[in-house]
């Protein structure tokens, strides 16, 4: 299926460019002059010890935190001052490290909410139920069903999102993020809480998403997944960029090994 209509219209070669991003929390420097770039269509792994600043980096790219210094360029535009909803519309979507589904809505509705930025019907359309609104509603529903099919969640479509087991919720987050037809999808530890078999299925899913042209950033502590699926890996440690390169290069990097992987 076509996951995102927009992928065809990407202008920049590098979909995301971060320059000297810096963020302080009180005395802690959570981000210290981070710079990197991501080419379109790749999967970029982002790894580093706990508290290295990975989630913070995501929060800055998605407009939830504003960087203290530096800038973020997405698809050729400086997005530092964009409000979050405009950013999502421009094509940035994410999942959360701690699941943030709308727990009293069904899974299907969760996905449909995810399409908010791609749909238009407003107050009057809803009240008068004009044909265009009905059509849009039908289309959203169909697309949501397709997405659930795509992510292998169709069986749970009418369950309350809050009642699903932790692992399903993680996948559901991805489906919801896809609903906004992103160009860039940020995944924060999607495999945490999944067993190896499930993780493997997740890897497959990520590959399918990649094939449809969506660029991804992946924060993950499961090395077999990250190394197996990424085209490029960025390593953070204590708010600094420690290394950047192909999975093979990173695996051979002594500094990374000692800071992160341990001797295992």
């Amino acid at each position: 299926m076509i996951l995102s209509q927009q992928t065809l219209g990407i202008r920049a070669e590098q979909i995301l460019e971060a320059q000297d991003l810096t963020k302080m929390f009180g005395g802690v420097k959570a981000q210290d002059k981070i710079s990197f770039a991501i080419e379109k269509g790749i999967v970029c792994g982002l790894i580093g010890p706990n508290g290295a600043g990975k989630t913070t980096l995501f929060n800055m790219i998605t407009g939830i935190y504003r960087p203290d210094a530096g800038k973020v360029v997405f698809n050729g535009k400086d997005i530092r001052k964009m409000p979050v909803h405009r950013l999502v519309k421009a094509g940035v979507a994410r999942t959360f490290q701690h699941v943030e589904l709308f727990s009293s809505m069904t899974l299907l509705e969760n996905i449909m909410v995810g399409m908010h930025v791609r749909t238009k019907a407003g107050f009057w359309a809803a009240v008068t139920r004009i044909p265009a609104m009905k059509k849009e509603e039908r289309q959203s529903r169909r697309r949501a069903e397709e997405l659930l099919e795509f992510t292998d969640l169709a069986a749970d479509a009418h369950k309350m999102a809050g009642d699903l087991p932790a692992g399903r919720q993680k996948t559901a987050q991805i489906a919801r993020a896809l609903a906004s037809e992103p160009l860039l999808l940020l995944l924060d530890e999607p495999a945490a809480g999944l067993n190896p078999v499930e993780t493997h299925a997740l890897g497959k899913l990520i590959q399918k998403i990649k094939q449809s042209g969506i660029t991804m950033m992946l924060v993950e502590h499961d090395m077999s997944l990250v190394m197996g699926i990424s085209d490029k890996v960025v390593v953070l440690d204590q708010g600094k960029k420690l290394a950047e390169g192909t999975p093979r290069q990173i695996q051979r990097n002594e500094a990374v090994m000692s800071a992160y992987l341990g001797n295992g």
Partner: protein
Amino acid sequence: MQEIVQYLFSGITTGAVYAVIAVGLSMLYSSTELINFAHGEFVMIGALAMVTLWVRLGLPLPVAVAGAVAAGCMLGLVFERFAIRTARNPEPITLIIITVGAGIFLKGAAMIVWGKDPFSMPSFSSHESIEIFGAALLPQSIWIVTAALVLAGGIHLFLKKTITGKAMVACAVNKKAAWLSGIPSEKMGVLAFGISAGCGAVAGIFIAPITMSSYDMGTILGLKGFCAAMIGGLGSLWGAFAGGLLLGILESLGAGLISSGLKDAIAFVLLLLILYIRPGGLFAAKEAKRF
């Protein structure tokens, strides 16, 4: 000039009343994340119990005060046990309506016990007002300000420095985790309600001499206390204190300098402006949630 000082004195007195009430509310919020809309009714109970014990029965002042506080605490405990705890999987708004119902109930009960007429009560200490810069200050005002300070400070220390206090806060923020740490959240709830209701009663006791006490005095006081607690920032005891004083002073200056008919409106406009600038109140708690 002399008037301005007078407005300030008056503002501080009313403000301290609001502050004591706000402290009770804020304390309960810190330890249960609940706003008790019946809090004003505990203030009323404190004041009316004082009327009975001190004025009617003629008990010595300290005994009467202790008795009235005990009455407030007891009611708080009963309320917690029978209304709050029995509620099945309560959402905050549900609990709020329960407290609203309890407020109406207490008001109705007080009306039957004490009747509909207001009562007055003599001051705790000498009658004469003290003159400063030509403005009059009531001795009772000093009592109230002291009570507000002691309560705010005491409860602040209790919540921030003692293990029991911290455990109460822990229960409020995450009941499941509190259970898993072995904190008996039910006991904590009882304690929180007891202390908070006691604070309410103390407020009633101290303000009874300067105002009239009647079964329906609580609602408006509770409301003002709520506003004060919000302005100060929920959960901060110093915030509650400051918020109360600020509200009182604004009202009094508004009445004196602009228009007494609009005084409440003036105070509320300013309070809203403060909230717009500092959405979490003056002493806003640090944001503790993130993605």
